[in-house]
């Protein structure tokens, strides 16, 4: 067990950095449990999300990098998009680099007067000038930081693009070119602090104490990861395998959820991407799977065979939001939109859902060409590229509203019946049933990954209302435990409770299944209370009518039943809150 947690605190206003050694936080292990405590301590619950005092928290866990597929960092903040709990996970090298810098968590508060970036090199932490980087896109800013001297291969680089700089409320943060803290606007919070980027590295030496135990458990897990087919889905086609599966099930959101299936979806399936555009796969540090699928986008810029090329990562959610949702049915069209959001640093899901709403709002004459400047139209890549640029540059009041997110735009212009948001967050790419809708609505960060309702919907069993609510709640509690160790959720079947305990025990952590379950439950409840303090109420949740107009898997869903399920969930949540 650790003697204490090493928490790096950086105050951008005072330009001061300190490392706190906190033995009172040991019981929280890391990830979301640790970050929740730090957020509670630092956040001003009743102040706006972009106030200088608001914190950004990053937390790793004790198993990161040294056990297979434990690769994530948890970030927490007050979300500028929803005004309540912000929580997002990112991979690639960041957790490894935090380990090299010997840090369990990083807390950033304050606001710099001028653009800066933070360079963490072990105990040496510098707040450095970033004026030349400020207006550069993600790709170029990352390149320039990559070209600096340092521990190449053991270093992580985080950057924001024009989205974060211009405070678009769903701006993301890019980690090492291909992974992101995508959801809920962490990029916007960084932009509000005039913080363009972070470079994390170090030379920590960590002698091992329990070599024999560790090696045994490591080998067992490594074998399960590499020798069984438990994770094949993620390495093979990757998450984009879902496009065809959902399309066949009639549960793929198309044209802003107006349809649930169409023949053209096959053109942009995972199979189609893999056969025609995939050039390689890469992995987060410490993951032998390699689920990051990289595609080549080739663009002709002149006659006489003049081409340029770029490489982009793709996943199910990107193909859904920047493909199916907006009716783009060719691979290069989807990749072109992915390229734009990548360079600007915007959350792909939020952008795609917003574009779909704009298109339908225009069709319904809720907004006009005076607002949109361009004519939004399902399937028109070039127009969407221009609209995304306008969202970031905000040339008029309409685009200023769009930069606040879909929910805000509906408050100003209407059209909430077909604005696909739950809890003010744009929804993920599933129309599988009640588990999906309720799950994203009640989930702490309004993400499909909070409680995997979409997955419960796809199980081959009919759940009673009580059973569905119970499953959602239990899954979210369990995921809070996994997220405290920051295990990639793709490996959730490998890391069952017993395996997690064995892994922790092998490196000297005295925990058992009960203590871990309690950690998951306590974190789940702490976050719920924190959300309430920030003004969120489950009772105020609403569901866009479109969910109930378009069939899901050959059946029409009922808004009344969804409301009843929500009431049941609230009842169960209140019970849980009152017991503990």
């Amino acid at each position, binding site marked *: 067990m650790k003697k204490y947690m090493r928490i790096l605190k950086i105050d951008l206003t005072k330009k001061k950095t300190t490392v706190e050694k906190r033995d009172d936080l040991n019981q929280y292990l890391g990830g979301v449990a640790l970050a929740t405590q730090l957020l509670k301590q630092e956040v001003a619950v009743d102040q706006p999300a972009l106030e200088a005092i608001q914190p950004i928290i990053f937390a790793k866990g004790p198993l990161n*990098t040294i056990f297979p597929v434990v690769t994530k960092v948890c970030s927490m903040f007050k979300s500028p998009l929803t005004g309540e709990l912000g929580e997002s996970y990112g991979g690639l090298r960041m957790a490894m680099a935090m380990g090299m810098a010997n840090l369990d968590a990083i807390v950033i508060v304050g606001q710099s007067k001028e653009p800066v970036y933070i360079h963490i090199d072990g105990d040496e932490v510098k707040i450095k000038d970033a004026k030349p980087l400020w207006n550069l896109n993600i*790709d170029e800013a990352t390149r320039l930081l990559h070209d600096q001297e340092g521990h190449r291969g*053991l270093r992580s680089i985080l950057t924001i693009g024009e989205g974060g700089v211009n405070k678009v409320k769903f701006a993301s943060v890019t980690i090492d070119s291909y992974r992101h803290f995508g959801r809920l606007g962490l990029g916007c919070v960084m932009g509000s602090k005039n913080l363009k980027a972070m470079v994390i590295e170090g030379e*920590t*030496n960590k002698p091992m104490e329990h070599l024999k135990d560790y090696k045994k458990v490591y080998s067992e897990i*490594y074998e399960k990861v590499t020798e069984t087919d438990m994770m094949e889905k993620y390495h093979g086609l990757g998450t984009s395998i879902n496009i065809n599966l959902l399309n066949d099930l009639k549960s793929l959101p198309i044209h802003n959820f107006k349809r649930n299936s169409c023949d053209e979806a096959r053109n942009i399936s995972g199979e189609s991407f893999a056969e025609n555009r995939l050039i390689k796969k890469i992995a987060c540090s*410490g993951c032998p799977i390699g689920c990051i699928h990289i595609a080549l986008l080739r663009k002709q810029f002149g006659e006489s065979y003049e081409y340029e090329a770029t490489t982009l990562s793709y996943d199910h959610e990107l193909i859904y939001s920047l493909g199916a949702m907006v009716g783009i049915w060719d691979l290069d069209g989807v990749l072109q939109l992915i390229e734009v959001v990548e360079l600007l640093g915007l959350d792909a899901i939020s952008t795609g859902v917003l574009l779909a709403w704009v298109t339908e709002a225009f069709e319904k004459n809720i907004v006009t060409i005076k607002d949109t400047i361009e004519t939004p139209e399902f399937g028109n890549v070039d127009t969407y590229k221009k609209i995304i640029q306008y969202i970031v540059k905000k040339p008029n009041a309409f685009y200023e509203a769009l930069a606040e997110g879909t929910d805000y735009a509906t408050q100003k212009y209407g059209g909430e019946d077909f604005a696909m948001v739950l809890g003010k967050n744009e929804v993920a790419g599933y129309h599988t049933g009640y588990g999906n809708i309720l799950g994203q609505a009640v989930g702490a960060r309004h993400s499909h990954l909070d409680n995997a309702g979409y997955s419960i919907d796809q199980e081959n069993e009919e759940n009673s209302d009580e059973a569905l609510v119970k499953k959602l709640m239990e899954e979210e509690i369990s995921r809070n435990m996994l997220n405290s160790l920051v295990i990639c959720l793709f490996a959730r079947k490998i890391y069952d409770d017993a395996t997690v305990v064995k892994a922790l025990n092998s490196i000297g952590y005295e925990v058992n299944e009960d203590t871990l379950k309690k950690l998951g439950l306590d974190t789940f409840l702490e976050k719920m209370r924190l959300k309430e303090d920030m003004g969120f109420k489950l009772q105020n949740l609403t569901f866009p009518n479109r969910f109930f107009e378009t069939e899901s898997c050959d059946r029409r869903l009922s808004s009344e039943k969804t409301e009843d399920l929500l009431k049941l969930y609230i009842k169960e949540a209140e019970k849980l809150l009152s017991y503990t």
Partner: protein
Amino acid sequence: MEKNKILQVKNIGQCIGCYSCMLTCATNVYKNFSLKNSAIAVKTSGGYQGRMVVNICRGCKDAACAAACPTDALTPREGGGGKYKEELCIGCKKCVENCVAKAIGFDSISNKAVFCKQCGLCAKQCPHDVIGMEASQ
């Protein structure tokens, strides 16, 4: 330990950058969780937009690193590369400076070189057949 074989990069294009080889070296050979303590170094050339590269000991005969070592910490190994007696390393970094392949790491905390012992554990751990122990040329 395979005496007449040395570590070789067989299929660099297949590397996904999982760092399993580095973790194996650091934990099994150097008994350390820090990846700085790995004698094999996976990096990107030109960032992730570029390509993966792997810096390994190339197993030179009459290796320049061993020739440069002022103590007997590094001595030539049969089959190529060097034999490393960590306890004799004085931290002068002469081996590091003399290796054009950038294959020798340095642990600034213990003040000792991190040197490939040609044990082949990293190759066994590689999930994508990127590296292997092969007969020296």
